């Protein structure tokens, strides 16, 4: 994600001056024109889809048609787990629909303590702090840890919530080329030795589904005296022997100072968190503004999250099936002649690279017509100005469904001319 980079050296992406009628919305004129031009081609609005009914983690009714879901980040398919649903219903009955308050005032219920206990157990770490969204977890932790004279060294393709956290804390921002260990090392060496340093990495980068060389990156970061934060939003529950993420998979979780994660992917609800072994971690509850100045998660949400996290600890079979699904879809799409974001499957995200936005939107609509939903991703969310059809697999996709998905890609790809 390169959104914040758009400010660097004021690149030439300003809308042309309109002679009159300028107001605060004028800065969006170029985007409005681009969207209008796209819709004028007759394509359905790819950013306006409504799920009329959701049947399961892998199926929904869209435009009156039963559709296979392949773009939901619902990696472990926990959204309809009977135990998870039951826990949520019970919490609604016993604790009501919402807390109407901040975690530091009236918004900490038994369920909030229980989900934090589940996280500590899941990661085998000393501290866990739950936020109302994953976005707020990154925003809050990064902005609070790194202030004005501190340095944040981050991958150029970092998620918007990471960039926004950097801006909110007013830290010195030092980006380095995506997944480039020597670029990171060089930049660390140029930062004043006495300055506070936070290196921000992601386990899986969500646009292309590629994994970071965390082992090497964390080693050079620690050698330079930096603290390390890893966002494992897209790996929790799936990657690593216990589903703790890419840092666990690469054997370096003990060297990570802060793991950021979300409940809105594998966990199957909404919320965000940070886990850490730092002895002073708990003070963040008083000084982290996105934690303090917002209402806490509803009781039903923390109850579903806690139940889901405890079940994910024992999700070995599901993890194995999800890997099989990823490998099969990756190999199948490659064989059909699609260009993919990674040469080998590295996560449960498979990004199909489209030649341009127009072809991408046409392919997206053709797939929806076949009964398949994927994410259409475009700049500035994507790296290198790419248009992507991003597929995220679910452990609940059956072998038969993966077969259907491949057939749909073949039909839509030939109809739109994306493949020959």
């Amino acid at each position: 994600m390169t959104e914040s980079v758009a400010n660097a050296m004021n690149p030439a992406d300003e809308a042309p001056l309109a002679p009159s009628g300028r107001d605060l919305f004028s800065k969006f004129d170029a985007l409005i024109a681009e969207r209008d031009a796209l819709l004028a081609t007759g394509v359905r609005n790819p950013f306006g889809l409504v799920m009329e009914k959701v049947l399961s983690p892998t199926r929904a009714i869209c435009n009156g048609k039963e559709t296979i879901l392949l773009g939901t980040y619902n990696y472990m398919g926990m959204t309809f787990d009977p135990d998870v649903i039951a826990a949520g219903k019970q919490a609604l009955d016993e604790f009501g629909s919402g807390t109407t308050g901040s975690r530091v005032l009236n918004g900490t219920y038994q369920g909030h303590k229980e989900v934090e206990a589940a996280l500590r157990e899941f990661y085998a770490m000393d501290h866990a702090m739950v936020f109302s969204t994953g976005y707020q977890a990154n925003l809050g932790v990064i902005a609070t840890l790194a202030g004005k004279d501190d340095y944040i060294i981050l991958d150029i393709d970092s998620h918007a919530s990471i960039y926004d956290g950097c801006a909110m804390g007013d830290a010195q921002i030092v980006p380095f080329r995506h997944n480039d260990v020597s670029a990171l090392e060089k930049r660390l060496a140029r930062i004043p030795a006495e300055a506070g340093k936070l290196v921000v990495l992601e386990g899986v980068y969500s646009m292309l589904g590629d994994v970071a060389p965390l082992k090497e990156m964390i080693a050079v970061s620690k050698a330079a005296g930096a603290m390390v934060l890893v966002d494992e939003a897209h790996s929790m529950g799936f990657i690593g022997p216990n589903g703790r993420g890419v840092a666990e998979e690469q054997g370096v979780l003990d060297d990570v100072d802060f793991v950021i994660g979300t409940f809105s992917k594998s966990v199957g609800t909404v919320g965000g968190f940070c886990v850490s072994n730092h002895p002073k971690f708990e003070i963040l509850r008083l000084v982290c503004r996105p934690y303090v100045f917002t209402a806490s998660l509803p009781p039903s949400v923390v109850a579903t999250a806690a139940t889901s996290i405890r079940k994910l600890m024992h999700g070995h079979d599901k993890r194995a099936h999800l890997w099989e699904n990823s490998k099969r879809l990756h190999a199948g799409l490659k064989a059909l002649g699609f260009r993919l974001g990674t040469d080998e499957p590295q996560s449960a995200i498979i990004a199909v690279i489209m030649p341009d936005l127009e072809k991408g939107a046409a392919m997206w609509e053709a797939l929806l017509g076949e009964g398949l939903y994927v994410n259409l991703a475009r700049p500035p969310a994507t790296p290198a100005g790419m248009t992507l059809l991003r597929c995220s697999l679910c452990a609940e996709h059956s072998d038969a469904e993966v077969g259907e998905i491949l057939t749909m890609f073949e039909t839509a790809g030939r109809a739109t001319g994306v493949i020959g």
Partner: protein
Amino acid sequence: MTDRDETFDKVAKLIAPFNQKGVALTEATSFAGDLEWDSLVVMDFVASVEDEFDILITMNMQAEIETVGQLVDAVETLRTEG
């Protein structure tokens, strides 16, 4: 030739591979308006300047730099500080 002139020349050499329209470079040449660079080109170019002079140009500093002259000034300042 002053140190600043030398820096200007070095910066101009680094701009060349990204100067696809062959814009003539002056102190006032702007990266966005004249060279029409997008954020991706800016990232690659900044990395090349950082490596050439062994300096760090944070994104905070980049936001303040619009022209070649301003970049040369920033490089000069960073070199003497470092």
